[in-house]
């Protein structure tokens, strides 16, 4: 998962650092939100991502009105209907069952998005609480939790998912739960390190000194500052979950009652779309996956930059523009 590393601080040169004073914990919520919105608004890639995701959600919600055919009803299928080329009747052609690819694509958005959002919600809840507890309370319990997280981090996800889904049976809910309960480790790690550093900060120590309880500090001081991190991370986990769902479905472990994009690809791949040259049945669902995943990734990256503005430049930049004085006739050989 793309995780940005940030330069820690600006060299002291008398310029108020971008980002240096921006995320002061004492800053008011409204100001912080305004600055985040402003920075996000400047990020063209993030806006594109938001638009891509918005379009996908729109299509998923309005599927019955957008899709030209109802995927549930099976009309009469003749041999000519199988892998029919794109035409006016079928804008994206037909699949191995003679069904309209465009309609399947539109309905497939529902499956991908539902799995993506639901699974990452589970990951967020588990990862967020594990990270917060391990980071804030620390001690033996926190340590143990992190050890466990480390173990889960090392165990390869997909093979484990395959094994579990193969054994419990591939229903939509099973897939969501499996992806959700295996995808929380990254979130937990990031949230923990943030909570760890927050708990030593002045304002928390001050709150503790005036007798604030653990829960109060957690709720009022730590959680609001960890939340942006959790949100950003969740957006990235959504894209990961969608990729994982499509992979499982492609490997034949998708819910047989609903056709996801991965499932469409599974059918096309195993039922001769390549040898018959039916590229539309292979390209369209894949583009759907890339569209949604890329949208989430762009959005997540932009959010991360908006919450944690990075420096504009580093020490090896600006050399060629540094001398910007008017021409000095003969000054250099004075």
């Amino acid at each position, binding site marked *: 998962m793309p995780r940005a590393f940030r330069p820690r601080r*600006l*060299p*002291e*040169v*008398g*310029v*108020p650092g*971008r980002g240096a004073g921006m995320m002061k914990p004492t800053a008011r919520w409204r100001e912080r939100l305004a600055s985040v919105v402003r920075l996000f608004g400047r990020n063209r890639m993030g806006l594109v991502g938001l638009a891509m995701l918005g379009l996908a959600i729109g299509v998923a919600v309005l599927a019955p009105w957008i899709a030209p055919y109802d995927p549930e009803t099976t009309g009469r299928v003749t041999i000519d209907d199988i892998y029919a080329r794109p035409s006016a009747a079928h804008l994206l052609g037909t699949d191995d069952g003679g069904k309209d690819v465009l309609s399947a694509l539109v309905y497939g958005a529902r499956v991908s998005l539902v799995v993506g959002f639901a699974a990452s919600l589970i990951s967020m809840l588990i990862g967020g609480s594990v990270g917060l507890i391990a980071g804030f309370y620390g001690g033996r319990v926190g340590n143990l939790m992190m050890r466990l997280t480390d173990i889960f981090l090392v165990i390869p996800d997909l093979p484990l998912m395959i094994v579990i889904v193969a054994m419990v049976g591939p229903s939509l809910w099973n897939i969501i739960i499996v992806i959700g309960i295996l995808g929380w480790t990254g979130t937990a790690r990031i949230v923990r390190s943030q909570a760890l550093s927050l708990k030593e900060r002045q304002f928390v120590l001050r709150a503790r000194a005036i007798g604030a309880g653990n829960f109060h500090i957690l709720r009022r001081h730590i959680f609001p500052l960890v939340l942006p991190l959790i949100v950003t991370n969740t957006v990235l986990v959504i894209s990961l979950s969608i990729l994982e769902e499509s992979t499982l479905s492609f490997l034949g472990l998708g819910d047989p009652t609903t056709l996801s994009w991965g499932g469409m690809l599974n059918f096309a791949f195993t039922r001769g779309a390549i040898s018959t040259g039916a590229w539309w049945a292979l390209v369209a669902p894949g583009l759907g996956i890339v569209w949604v995943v890329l949208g989430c990734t762009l959005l997540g990256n932009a959010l991360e930059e908006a919450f944690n503005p990075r420096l*504009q*430049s*580093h*020490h090896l*930049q*600006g*050399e*060629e*523009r*540094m*001398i*910007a*004085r*008017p021409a*000095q006739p003969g*000054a*250099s*050989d*004075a």
Partner: protein
Amino acid sequence: MSERPTAPPLLDVRDLTTRFITPEGVFHAVEGLSFQLERGESLGLVGESGCGKSTAMLSLLRLLPAAGRIVGGQALLDGTDLFGLDESDMRAVRWHRISMIFQGAMNAFNPVRTVGAQIAEALVFHGLAQDRGEAQPRVDELLEMVGITGARGSQYPHQYSGGMRQRAMIAMALACSPQVVIADEPTTALDVMIQAQILELLERLQRELGLAVILVTHDLSVVAEVCHRVLVMYGGVLAESCEVDGIFNQPLHPYTRRLLAAFPDLSRPEGKLVSIPGYPPRLNALPPGCRFAPRCEEVHERCLQERPKPRQVLPGHWVACHLHEAGAANDRT
């Protein structure tokens, strides 16, 4: 501008003007700064943080961050304008002729290479040694000069204490026998005992090696101990400059006087620049007149409209303040 008719100064900075061009606007970090540095002289550059001291020094070595622009002025080192050199000639000047001791030596060393290797690197790059092995005796000599046994050169920065790291930084700065050493807040991150040691070391080396040193600090007591001459900056411009005794015995600029008032006892080194009401000016929204006017107790109409220019009001004593037009100064004395 100095009236000494003798040999030209080692470093002659004229009208240095540096700005930062950022999305938040243009920051006038240094405006029309001029000063000279003689051979073997120790010059203190004093001011609150954010007043442009470090920016001025980084400008001399052309090491500004990417947003920084040197928009005017000259920096003549032995008569050669540093701002007129091309990049590769400038690289040859860095460290070989002007070196720098950075503030917070904590991060000034690369954590994954030994201290000795990083000192040797400068020697090899500037052609003072063929390779690492040939540089070794000089590295040992340099380390021992600052009181570190040569064997510790093969250790990594994290194995050094803070004070030791700063001493190693000094050793590194002296590696190529530069003519000018700029020490930018060399003692800021250190505790008081170590601060004293480092300053003593700097002063001794300056004397013994005949170095010209610019000591950047916000601590006037440091200046009193180490420097021959003082340059006080405020809000990116020169406020006052004279021999070190002059600053303490006859401060002219209201800002300098406020600074000194904040140090009732100069022998107490833990003092900081405190208790001047108000804040330093924001360099992207400067007052139209004197930059100190909003905080000045002796402000009058003219200060709000016209920027005072530096004038020599006493021999070798420069001040930029409307209160000290040549005549006014005489009245006071």
